[in-house]
């Protein structure tokens, strides 16, 4: 049984992982004296979407390159498909799909020719036209297949890169910020496709700067300054960020200070409450599902007329800020 085990000891209980496809243990990568990836460990289960989120320069791309064998770790170990990536056979490499952060195909070739080149690199047979067509239709580039890559937009180049990564139907995908520069509608379509691939048994390791996209992942690693702060499910990350779940509590009358003090004294309410208006509070509780009826009962006892009481789901941007805050405050 593999375990997602971020190096930060002050974490929620580690996620239990069976049948991991990727296992990174104490990975560190230095360029000169600069530590870009700092002693990170995690496992990626088969048929899952593993998201790696973090600000620009946090070491996400370097981590992807360590996992794909483009870089060798300074210390630590990576195992992918039960092998170190630098010992991969051609057959094992053919099971990978890699989408680098930047467009790395050829500006003087057309969209179709670029995709054809990528398909050939993976040894796809001569009757691959149908696959190329499907891949291009998926990224909505089929109508632009005759255009030179240098003449299409940055977003279209990202889409072409993604098509080139998916065209040979890989088992394990490394996608380095695949949705950067993609419009929201197409991003949603991409994520739908990623989930389909996951359902078909594919494993996806994906990095993103769009923190909100973490919600689409099965597991999320949060990286900052080369360190892996946490690996957990999206829900687990929220709980970890705030120390519990939150409910928004709105009353018909103004909520006075004494009532708020009595509320904080309840056993299932964490010390932290946030005033969101003269008659509304955001309350941190152990579990929103059990706290909601208890809060309703307490309000009736206190003769407080409740206007609304519902769980609050913070955005992942907020979760990310909360998670990174201690790191930032400690310099």
């Amino acid at each position, binding site marked *: 049984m593999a375990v997602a085990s971020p190096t930060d000891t002050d974490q929620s209980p580690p996620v239990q992982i069976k049948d991991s496809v990727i296992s990174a243990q104490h990975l560190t990568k230095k360029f000169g004296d600069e530590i870009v990836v700092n002693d990170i460990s995690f496992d990626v289960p088969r048929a899952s979407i593993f998201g790696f989120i973090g600000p620009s320069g946090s070491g996400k791309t370097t981590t992807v390159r360590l996992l794909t064998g483009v870089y060798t770790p300074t210390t630590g170990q990576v195992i992918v498909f039960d092998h170190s990536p630098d010992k991969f056979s051609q057959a094992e490499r053919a099971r990978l799909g890699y989408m680098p952060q930047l467009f790395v195909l*050829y500006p003087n070739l057309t969209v179709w020719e670029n995709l054809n*080149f990528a398909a050939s690199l993976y040894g796809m047979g001569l009757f691959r036209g149908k696959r190329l067509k499907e891949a291009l239709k998926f990224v909505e580039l089929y109508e632009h297949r005759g255009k030179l890559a240098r003449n299409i937009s940055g977003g279209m180049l990202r889409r072409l890169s993604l098509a080139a990564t998916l065209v040979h139907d890989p088992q394990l995908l490394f996608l380095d910020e695949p949705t950067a520069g993609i419009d929201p509608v197409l991003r949603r379509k991409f994520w739908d496709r990623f989930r389909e691939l996951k359902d078909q048994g594919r494993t996806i390791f994906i990095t993103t700067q769009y923190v909100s996209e973490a919600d689409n992942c099965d597991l999320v690693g949060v990286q900052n300054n080369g360190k892996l702060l946490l690996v957990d499910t999206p829900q687990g990350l929220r709980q970890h960020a705030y120390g519990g779940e939150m409910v928004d509590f709105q009353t018909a009358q103004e909520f006075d200070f004494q009532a708020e003090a009595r509320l904080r004294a309840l056993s299932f309410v964490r010390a932290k409450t946030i005033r969101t208006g003269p008659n509304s509070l955001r309350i941190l509780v152990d579990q929103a599902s059990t706290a909601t009826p208890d809060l309703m009962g307490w309000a009736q006892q206190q003769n407080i007329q409740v206007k609304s009481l519902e769980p609050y789901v913070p955005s992942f941007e907020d979760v990310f800020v909360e998670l990174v805050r201690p790191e930032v405050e400690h310099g």
Partner: protein
Amino acid sequence: MANFFRGVIRASAFIRKEIFEILRQPRLVATLVLGPFLILFVFGIGYRDQPRSLRTLFVAQANSAIAAQDIEKYGKSMSAFLVYAGVTDNLDAALEQLHRGQVDLVIVEPSDAASTITNNQQALFVLYHHEIDPTQVSYVDYLGWLFVGEVNQQVLRSFAVQGQKDAVNMHANLQEAHQNALAMRQALQSGDDALALQKEQALTGNVDAISLAAGATLGLLDSLHPAKDVNAGPAQSLLNELRQSASQPGSTAGTKDERLARVDKIDKDITDLDARITEFQSIDPDIIISPFRSETKGVANLQPSVSDFFAPAVLALLLQHLAVTFAALSIVRERNVGTMELFRVSPLSAGEALFGKYISYMLFGGVIATILSALLVLALHVPMLGNWWYFALVVCAVLFTSLGIGFAISIVSQTDSQAVQYSMIILLASVFFSGFIMSLEMLWSPVRVISWMLPTTYGTLLLRDIALRGVDPNWGLLGGLIAIGLGLMFISWLLMRRLIMSSH
């Protein structure tokens, strides 16, 4: 087997990709074909197989031993090399004209030639020029050598003319000697010893006069015939024999028959010598001073024009430069674009990538070579005496080996400009060391090692042999070229393997 086919598919990705990328640059293709063709075309119509004529000003002092008209005559006699620009006695003014570029050459006549020669020294013509190009300086040296040769010839000619004039007097003396010999013979036959002695004395006087008159004439005469005696030519030997016969003691000595035989011998020598003098007089003085000339005849099947001769070298150099540059930019660009990262993750092997690139550039270079060769033969009428298949084989070998150089450059280069600079260095080395502009024999032997490392060297020699001599290629040379190519391919493969397979 499936792996093999996948490898072929991966390699084919590069064949298509490289060809498409090149075809997207039609101007580049047009330049590669038309550029060398136009250069050879313009060179062919612009090249003049004539020596450069230098505007030459002569400096002669007023009391010069050589008359101004003679100087003009000398200058104009070399009109192929010199444009006579006049004679002056002011050296400073002449040099000023030279500095201003109004004349190309100033020839200063020796100031006191007669006394210098009398003192057993050569008189010196000084040639001033303003050239810095070593080949032009050599040309001026050569021209000085030609000019002095011309002057010396003119001097010799005057000697020859004088010798022919002197020979007229000799001829008269010989006629008189002949008459005296006949008279002496008749006197001996009739028993008139007194008359015989008288005629003998007259004959001896004639021979002395002939010896005196002969002087340098005999030297000139003998120079026309191969010498049997190292000390004297045939005419001189004849004269010596005559003098010896004529100076024997008393014509009365010996029996009558012995005396008659001696007179006959003297008369025969006189007749022979006269015949030779007559022959000498009939010869053109220019033949006497320059009795020999040379004529070159090549045994090759063809004597090509200068542009024809350079055409195979241009083709070889262009193909080498094309292949080196394309290959040099190829991998460094993959690295700069970032595709190398993609290759590292993909199942592509170094051999497959290199194989694909080799094939694509060989195809492209082959097409360029075909078009260019067709233009050279059909439009510029460059001869093609040999076998086209051998020609194609050499072209392929040049391309193959040049690609190896280019790939090696590309893998060690970090940037486009570095790769281009290395390619230009290879081009420059090829221009100087491949025999393109000067024969390999002009290079110091150890330096020729560089020559034999360049595909152009092999290509030039082999293509010239096939196209202009019509012979089969030198298989040793061709084998050497291919061996270098294989070695470079192996090195490129090792470097490429390290580049693709190794991670950082």
